[in-house]
Every structure is written in C-alpha cells, then in structure tokens.
C-alpha cells in the first residue's frame, strides 16, 4: 500500500496539519512504509474473531447526576491564547 502525494495532502488537510510542499514527498514515503508494515495484518485469519476495543472486560460505570464542578473560568482562561469578555476568540467563522 503506498500513498500518493495527493492522498498525503488530503490526510493532512483532514487532520488540519499545514504541509509545506517539500514535506509531501518524505511523508508519502514514510507513511507508505508504515502502511506496508501494517499491511502484515491482512495475512491474519480473523474470520470469527470479535474486535477487541478494550483490554478490560468491564462495563461503563455511571456517575450520579450532581453538579460537582465550580466556576474556574479565570484559571482556565489564564492559559488561553485569546479571550474577551469571557469568550474564546477565533478568526471569524462564516457559516
């Protein structure tokens, strides 16, 4: 399995990673190698095998519906890159 430069660009876009043109080729080569490694999986016989999402055979625990968190906006926004009037700022979003 090898990835074309176009596929690399598409994946980088989907993952929101800027991709300088000179990096497309090396990434294409490296990712193709990784996918080749991963390709060994196709040889495994897994016809009747149930997928394993998790190592633990447990079920989800439920939390009581109670408000336990207090307002810590000031502390949380002290580490934010851009805030105004309590809102996080981003470049204008056009819907």
């Amino acid at each position, binding site marked *: 399995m090898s990835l074309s430069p176009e596929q690399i660009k598409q994946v980088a876009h*989907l993952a*929101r990673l800027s991709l300088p043109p000179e990096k497309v080729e090396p990434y294409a080569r490296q990712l193709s190698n990784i996918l080749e490694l991963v390709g060994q999986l196709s040889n495994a016989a897994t016809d009747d095998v149930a997928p394993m*999402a*998790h190592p*633990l055979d*447990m*079920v*989800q*625990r*439920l*939390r*009581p*519906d*109670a*408000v*336990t*968190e207090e*307002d*810590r*906006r000031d502390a*949380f*926004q002290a580490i934010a890159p851009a805030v*105004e*009037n*309590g*809102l*996080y*700022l*981003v*470049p*204008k*979003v*056009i*819907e």
Partner: protein
Amino acid sequence: MANDNWEAVIGLEVHCQLLTKSKIFSGAATAYGAEPNTQADAVTLGLPGVLPVLNGTALRMAVTFGLAVDAQIAERCVFARKHYFYPDLPKGYQISQYELPIVSGGHLDIELEDGSVKTIGITRAHMEEDAGKSLHEGFVGQTGIDLNRAGTPLIEIVSEPDIRSAQEAVAYLKKLHQLVVYLGICDGNMQEGSFRCDANVSVRHKGESKFGTRTETKNVNSFRYVEKAIEYEIQRQIEVIESGGRIVQETRLFNPDTGETRAMRTKEDANDYRYFPDPDLLPIVCTADYIAGIRAGLPELPEAKRLRFEQDYGLSAYDARTLTSSRELAAYYEAVVKASGAEAKLCANWVATDLLGALNKLGQDIATSPVGADALAGLLKRIADKTISGKIAKEVFEAMLAGEGDADTIIQKRGLVQITDESAIISAIDKVMAANPGQLADYRSGKDKLFGFFVGQVMKATQGKANPDAVNRLLKEKLAG
C-alpha cells in the same frame, strides 16, 4: 405544492436536551443563561488529560424515551467519537453513538387533519454531547466561543422518512415535543434550544419508489418555522428540478426573517467523520432488571391518558385531548374533579374553557395559574351544592383571579349565596307581577315569550341569587294564576 405530481419525502432529526443537572460526562452545571464559559469545566474544555464518566440520569432518560416510543433498548451499546474541527467542539470530536445506539426501532402515531392516524417510524435515538455556541456579533473579524452548552446531554431522535408534508412534520414534532415534556426528560424550550429540529427533505414524482436527493435544513427552532422551512424547501426543490437543475446534497440554513433557506458553507469533512469506539468509555450494558425498573416508573403517556379521560370522565374526544395536552394540566383537572366532587363534565368545562381562557389572557400557564386546583375545586363545590349558580360562579371566578380570596370568602363577602328559600322567591315573584300588570295580562292572553321577561325581572329583584330552577317552577305556577 406547485404541482400535484410531486411528493415530498421528509425525515426529521430532533436534538433533545436532557433535563439533567450536570453534563453528560462531567459534573459541570447545565443551567441555561449563565455567564459565558462559567459552566465549562476541565472536561467540557477538553483540557489535556481529562476523561469522561457517564451521567447515569442521562442514560436513564434516554431509556425512558425509548420505552415510551415502544422501541428496542440495546442491551449493550457504545459511545463513538465523531471527528470534525470546529471551535464550538472543544475536543475535535463529539462523543456520540454510531453503530450501536441506545434506542432503535420505535414509532410515534400522529393524527392527521382528516382525523386519520399515521404511524411515523423512529429509526433510532442515540445519546451524545451538545456543542458550544459561536457568537458572531460584537467582534470585528472574530467569533467568540461560549462552551457552557458543550457537554449538555442530548438524545438525537431520527425519524424514518415517513413524513409527506410540512403539516405532518409539525404534527410529528408537536407529538414528540409533548411526549418528551410529559416524560420529564426535556424542558421543551425551543427558544433556548432545548428541542431543535433538522429537516431532511427531498421530492420525487408521485408513484416513484426511489428517493430524490435530500437536503438537510438546520436551525429551525419553532413549529411555525419548521412548517415554513419545509414548505420553502419543497417548493425550491420542485422549481430547481422543473427548470432542469439538480438537487445538491447539502446542509441548508433557515432564515426566519426571510422564510428562506440557503446553502451553508459546508463542513468539508462531513463525509469523513472517522467514527470509532471511544476508548475512554466502556460499553453500556442495560440489564433486563434495569430496563424493567425504568418501565415501571414510566408516567402515563398522553395517548393512554386521553383514552382514560374519555372513558372515566365521559369527556368528549376534544375535551380529553385538551385536558391531556400537558401532564400538569391533566393533573390539575384530576385534582379539581377529586376535590370538588362536582360532575366531571362541569369540571372539564371550567378547566378547559374558563381557566385556560383566563390564563391565556393573563399570559400565564397552568404552572403559574393564580387559581390553583384546590381553589377552583372550592368554587365548583359551591355550584354542585347549589350555593351559587353557574352564572354567579363566573363572577366569583373573576374575583378569585383578581386575588380576592377563595370562593367561599368571596361568596360571603359579596352576599352571593343562592336563594333557595321558596317563600322569599314567591315574595319576589309577587312584587314583579304587581309591578308589571300590562305584561302579566299579555302573558296570560297567550304571549308565552314574556316568560323570559319575568324570569329576568325576578333574578334582577334577587340580585341573581335566586335558584334558577326554583324561579322557573314557581313563576310558572304563579303566572298561570
């Protein structure tokens, strides 16, 4: 529709905020209207290293909904991550359900205008977390993000494409809205976004079995807008196709000011959400006992309640529907019947007509009614025991609404007790007859219509307090001479 040859195919996706105190995966508050980001805790913000833990009440509410629409509750279901980048989605993914939703395969019956009943299938309902809000006003070239709403528990209820008109869509939505409010799992507040609807609309030629290309219209936050948006979209699609164009599968936004829909700048990754099971959450298992416990606690549903009201109280279908339109109203009515001991039909008239009419005028609803069920029962008790007439009762009711006290106080204070003492009524009749010799002569010579005149005069003479039955009977005897 422009053309009778066209048929619309509509499916609705309803996002219903669950009425929990805290968020679906954290202990932050969910109250509406707080200062921006004051209810965005570490988990809501998606800080590095934080983890979700499921709110048990959110699960219980989702199961409650499933049982109420006669659906399957998954014995085992899982949360999945749905990925897209958007500033109101803090983690870059929404925790939702994909392959294994909690609820699948239910239905809701709606009544059409012609009185027939149509069953709308409910494909599935899944649990997920709400996103935050983007605020575009007030900043130059910037958008402000408030994450208070992010993480509020939702169920997304997806209907089958069984709906064929905007009117059916509204009927379905109203029914669904009534149900979730009845169940106590949603406050139903559409202005605040607690109950939101996206409409998938396509059109096709009648008789065609294949679906046309559909659009999804978002941001429709009232029943009226849903109707308008769908009607607009149907018309638009017909016009596009008839003028030789093709419908593009896209997301559209309804603008309530213009009544039109327009294509949204699409979330480009919409077709590649990269769903996979959320490894921070484990499978949710609903045991038979757990489900049975919730089933046992289900409130009486609107449909069953309406039938019971018709049967037990002998109400008309219309009255029964009105009185069961909300759980609070139905409870109010039943409390009035029980406490007053008055005839169920009389109580129904008073609650459905007098009370609701008055509340409507006052801009109040049943929960904030200035006249409580016990107070109204106190009034109807006095009609039942003939202390006052129905007519006087209206006057007393007005006074009660004005806050003058309970029925008995007002009746006493205003001296409205009905006269049932026959000698007093006869004495009034005698006086009226003596004062109107001309009319008396005319009556006796055959002008029967004057009977009403005499009734009026007697009631006037007794300030309306005379028992109307007694007045009728005694007057007839006396006038006959």
